[in-house]
């Protein structure tokens, strides 16, 4: 099983071209991150010099948690549209009549969403840190700079983005309505949000070992999820809306070239 990089690349190019042409997608995808940037930034900048350490820590926890929602929700909503949206547009069937394999198609779609989502996640953190370093009181800026949640958040941005993407794609391959797919994908992203919340609010302390273990677990989940989603991707179900009927028994189709 080896995916054709050319075909994966073709899917990525097409998806990115569609994003570029649909400014509404770009605009609406940008609203949530901006909201998640403005609120914590204002919160940090408003900390008084006389604020207690507890208050400072609490504000920093909150401020570093909100931007972490960006790489979860944005890609999950986008990927939730990815398959069922094409099906509704009528563009999926012609694609499935080409030699492209399930894994190639899904990898391409996932990568096309992952790249901007992860970049957006890092951008939000970068802008937040930059503003705090330039405009916050020195003690607050130093506290942000040395917060243990900051490096943890940077590690988790791509892993949470991948979680959101695979969850969205999995739902998108199995439902027949875009709205249902997007609503379910937001709900299915909540475990990732809970994990981030526990860490950022220091219910579980983000030590190096814990971060490494959680990151490893998320990475393993992301890899396994890719394979699971490829198995969920059933051409017949996507085209007809029906499960494959019994009768002729075929061996399980390969993931890449069917």
């Amino acid at each position, binding site marked *: 099983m080896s995916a054709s990089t050319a*075909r994966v*690349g073709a*899917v990525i190019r097409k998806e990115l071209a*569609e994003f570029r042409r649909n400014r509404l997608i770009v605009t609406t995808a940008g609203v949530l991150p901006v909201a998640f940037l403005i609120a914590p930034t204002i919160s940090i900048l408003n900390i008084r010099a006389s604020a207690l350490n507890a208050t400072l820590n609490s504000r920093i926890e909150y401020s570093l948690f909100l931007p972490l929602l960006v790489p979860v929700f944005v890609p999950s909503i986008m990927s939730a549209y990815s398959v069922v949206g094409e099906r509704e547009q009528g563009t999926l069937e012609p694609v499935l009549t080409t030699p492209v394999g399930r894994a190639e198609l899904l990898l391409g779609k996932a990568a096309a969403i992952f790249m901007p989502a992860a970049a957006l996640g890092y951008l939000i953190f970068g802008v937040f840190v930059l503003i705090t370093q330039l405009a916050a009181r020195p003690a607050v800026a130093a506290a942000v700079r040395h917060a243990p949640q900051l490096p943890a958040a940077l590690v988790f941005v791509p892993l949470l983005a991948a979680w959101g993407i695979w969850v969205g794609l999995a739902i998108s391959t199995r439902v027949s309505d875009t709205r249902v797919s997007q609503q379910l994908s937001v709900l299915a992203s909540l475990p990732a949000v809970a994990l981030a919340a526990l860490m950022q609010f220091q219910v579980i302390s983000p030590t190096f070992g814990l971060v490494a273990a959680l990151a490893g677990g998320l990475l393993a989940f992301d890899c396994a999820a890719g394979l699971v989603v490829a198995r969920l991707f059933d051409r017949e179900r996507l085209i007809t809306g*029906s499960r494959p009927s019994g009768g*002729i028994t075929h061996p399980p189709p390969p993931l890449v070239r*069917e």
Partner: protein
Amino acid sequence: MSGDSVMRAGLDETGVGRTGQAVPRRPPTRDAPAAIEVSHLTKVFGGRAAVSDVSFSVAVGEVFGFLGPNGAGKTTTVRILGTLISPTAGSATVAGIPVGPGGAAEIRQRIAVMPESPGLYQRLTVTENLEYFARLYGLPRRQQRITEALAAVGLADRAHDLTGQLSKGLRQRAALARSLLNEPEVMFLDEPTSGLDPVATHEVHGLIAGLRDRGVTVFLTTHRLEEAERLCDRVAIMSTSLRTIGRPDDLRRELFTRSLNVTVAAALPEPGRVFGGLPAVQGWKAAGPPGGAPPGEGPAGYVLTVSDAAQAAPAVTRALVGAGADVLLIAESRHSLEDVYLELLGDDGGKSR
């Protein structure tokens, strides 16, 4: 595949002869190897058979019409042959490759399927749409292939337009160009003129005629009977199961007796004596006066059952003249494919059968 080859065939860019007439059809290649072989194909959805025990074959280079009412199983058959869905029972080969998971990728590389909906990305240009598919097919010389495909369907000047801005007819052409990219051996066209106006329909017909001249095997599903009659070497009529298959002329001959329509200026006093005993005339009946005139007034019509119209017509003419009748019309009645279709499926499209 090239725009040049279309021009060499004496076609304009839509593949239609410059006089507006469809180009002469190549004789069906009955002895050619089969491009499609279908044997006892059955597909069941949730206990309901969409396709039931269908068998047929399509020769290489043939334009094969697959006719039937809505819900007859045409699209399901195309999807099975296009390896999108698997059959419940039966087997099939396409381009010599058995339909099934083992051969699906190879079949997809060698065929093209144009679904009823063009399925174009409306925010991408025509070229971008084609480029995406050329990459999915892993084609070499992509730009050249795209240029040739667009030239073949007469869309070269709209290559950089967004497909969402094209008319429905132009989108259909763009979808056809997409189907030409991989130079398919077998092309499945599912209701290619559905929803098109007469001009766009005429253009698509021209393109299909062009495909035939390139030697592409075309599997055309339609419920437009005049379309099948005009374009197809053979047709199959189905309504879940196969009702009949053959050349349109053969089907007409099998289902209908040949007849001559005769109109004379006034009713014959003794038609039995005029028509009786004439060569190749097997029987006659009064058809009533043309135009709904009252009986006994004005022209009168007769329908003669004949075994050979070419032999009967001169004899009938002589007999009428000999009887002093003023002959207004003698014409062989020609049954359309629609007559064949309705005879087989009934006015309800076979739903009650």
